[in-house]
């Protein structure tokens, strides 16, 4: 299922939506320190797809096949301004994975 998010899109595999049930799919950014212990080092930003039972009102939500896909404003901004085509898939070993996402300011 494809959802229009600003100037970009999120495509969610049908099996992902089936697995969510009455919960919500939430896209979150996680920041970690870079590989060098240096004030100038790049912060590592990764996106994670999580299934949650409560919808935080601070998130931006879009209806998706009977449930909602919600995201932090920074995720929305990245997909919109970066005109990104993001895919949420389910893998056998790693659970939910997000492909095609780049953090954009």
């Amino acid at each position: 299922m494809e959802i229009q998010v600003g100037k970009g899109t999120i495509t969610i595999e049908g099996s992902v939506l089936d697995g969510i049930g009455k919960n919500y799919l939430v896209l979150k950014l996680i920041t970690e320190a870079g590989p060098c212990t240096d004030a100038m080092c790049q912060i590592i930003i990764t996106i994670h797809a999580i299934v949650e039972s409560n919808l935080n009102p601070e998130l931006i939500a879009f209806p998706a096949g009977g449930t909602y896909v919600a995201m932090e404003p920074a995720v929305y901004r990245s997909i919109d301004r970066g005109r990104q085509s993001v895919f949420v898939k389910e893998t056998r070993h790693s659970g939910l994975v997000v492909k095609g996402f780049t953090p954009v300011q």
Partner: protein
Amino acid sequence: MPTDPVCGMYVPEGSSIFTVVDGEKVYFCSKSCMLEYTSPDEREKSLRYRLAVAWIFSIPILIITYLLQFAYRDYILLLLTLPVQVYSGYVFYQGAYMAIKSRQGNMDLLITIGTVTAFVFSLFITIFPKAIISASIYYDASAFIITLILTGNYVENSTKKRANRSASRLVDMIPATSHFISDSGEVVDRKTSEISTGDRILVKPGEMFPCDGKIYEGVTEVDQSILTGEQEPVVKRVGDAVFSGTSNLNGSVRMEVSKTGRNTTVGQIYDLIRKASTGRAKVQKIADRFSAIFIPIVLTVAVASAIFWLIFLSYVGSPYSVEIAVLSFVSVVVIACPCAIGLAGPITMLISSSISSENGIVVKNAGSLDRLAKATRVVFDKTGTLTGSDPEISSITVSGGMKEDDLLALGASLELNSNHPVAKAITNEAKHRNLILHKSTGIKETPGTGIEGVVDGNKIGLARSMQQSGSAVDILVNGVKMGSIGLEYPLRDGSREAIDQLQSMGLSVSVLSGDSEEAVKDITQRLGLSDFHAGVFPGQKADIVKEYQQKGDYVIFVGDGINDTVALETADVGIAMGSGSDIARDSGDLIILSNDLNSIPKAIVIAGKTISKIRQNIFWAIGYNSALIPVAAGILVPAFGLAVYSVLPMLAALAMGFSSTTVVTNSILMKGRTEKILRDIKKTGVSMPVSGST
């Protein structure tokens, strides 16, 4: 959530690690970040001491290892190695401990594993010399890993300081002392840091303004080039705003301070330049991915190479199997440098932002440079952007038997209540003609439409004219049109050159305006443009930007930032034309302080060079690791034999120590090359590629 100003990490509000600057709490992720922020010199001093100790002990270690043989040699080497291993290497252990604690790999972890492995192996051989047949000690490797990497760090820090210097140049120039004027009028010198908002200060000719404020006595010419890049001095009179960092050229003036310290224009620009290093280009995603898997991959390769050499050399009957296994492990761990990858983007962003600020361009969102380099269309707001924001009266048309001055007086009486530029033009003209203005009541101003109220018992309205060609306002008395005032917005200096430049760079240019079609057509013809939208209300500007985006354009919207917030935010890159006081505005990814439209092609050139340099740095860093890790793992052994491992750990340390310096130096090179192109734009207006290799 607040961010650590040193490393950019999010810090929970209420964290116990904070300091107070200008009355505001600044939070940090760790004490070392706080120390770096509050006393940056302390860290450098500590690094210098550790480096001195490392070299003082490492040189005798090297001489003894390769040239001398005597009793208890191994124990003497152990004693010489201990200060390097414990004192000089402490910074790496500290970093490794933090990495383990936070379950994240970093370069300190790799260095610690490498040097401790070499040291522990040598210690074992020193205490049990016969435990491993033919095994040697490698104190030289363990000490030199620390010494060479510390040296690399030191050189890297000095290079980074050079990169930072241009950023801090603005704040460094602010005078430490100001001439404070007391209530009694006495002038006393005070530290600038002790000056507060509302204080009055004297600024003498030749001095720099230490704070932002307003002149209340005196006239002078001010060199604002440090903020705007414009070399022409600006005359400042009573009531005019002056900005810290600008130079008072020839008049003694007294000013009331409105902003001090970090809140001044210069302070805000400096903060933005520093923050630029946390901006991200799309290509930096590679660094995100690489960093996340780098440490586990390096450790896996190191272990695999050690196991390979152990099994292979045991199989062929070599007595050096254990020794070479240890040395290959140490070499792989030490030669890998994730730091170069981590630095590739931020250091380039910092230098790019610094180059921009020197050209009167404030980069508020460094992440937008990526999109700026990709832009295909520039959409200009007309009024206040392509033209000056203050209109001039071009004609007055009277109907219904009213006199021209009477009509103007009525309009000006009403417009006295408005701050709109049209109101300013009408009241100025009335003042110029010495007309007597009347009291007005019941004022109602509708943005984008006009103003109405009661003057001398008559209901007066000034509304945007829909009939007259060009910009004009109709004056209605009790609902009857009594005349019109024609307005003209003079074109901004250099706008034609800027548009020619943008077109020569392959960009399409469009104009949006709320004015009539005739007025906009006139301006666009003078600028050599054909694509324009007239009669656009402020709210419609964003829709037009979206239309262009839907057609596939990457749109830069250039506006004056007042009514254009939505369009600035909708565009891929929003550029706000501003004056020095506009930095605090939220809208706009970039702000052009100089009001010179030629800054737009410059900004695009800087963006192209920045992205190209980040890409270059990232691929260099990844290439370095991809090429040298196999070397450390033993790919060269068939050519040079196992003897290569006697020096490989030290060569690995040398390579790691200087790999980050190469990235920083490469970024600094961008400065000179980009500035040359920008000078060429200024001189000749020649066409330049939007992006390209540097």
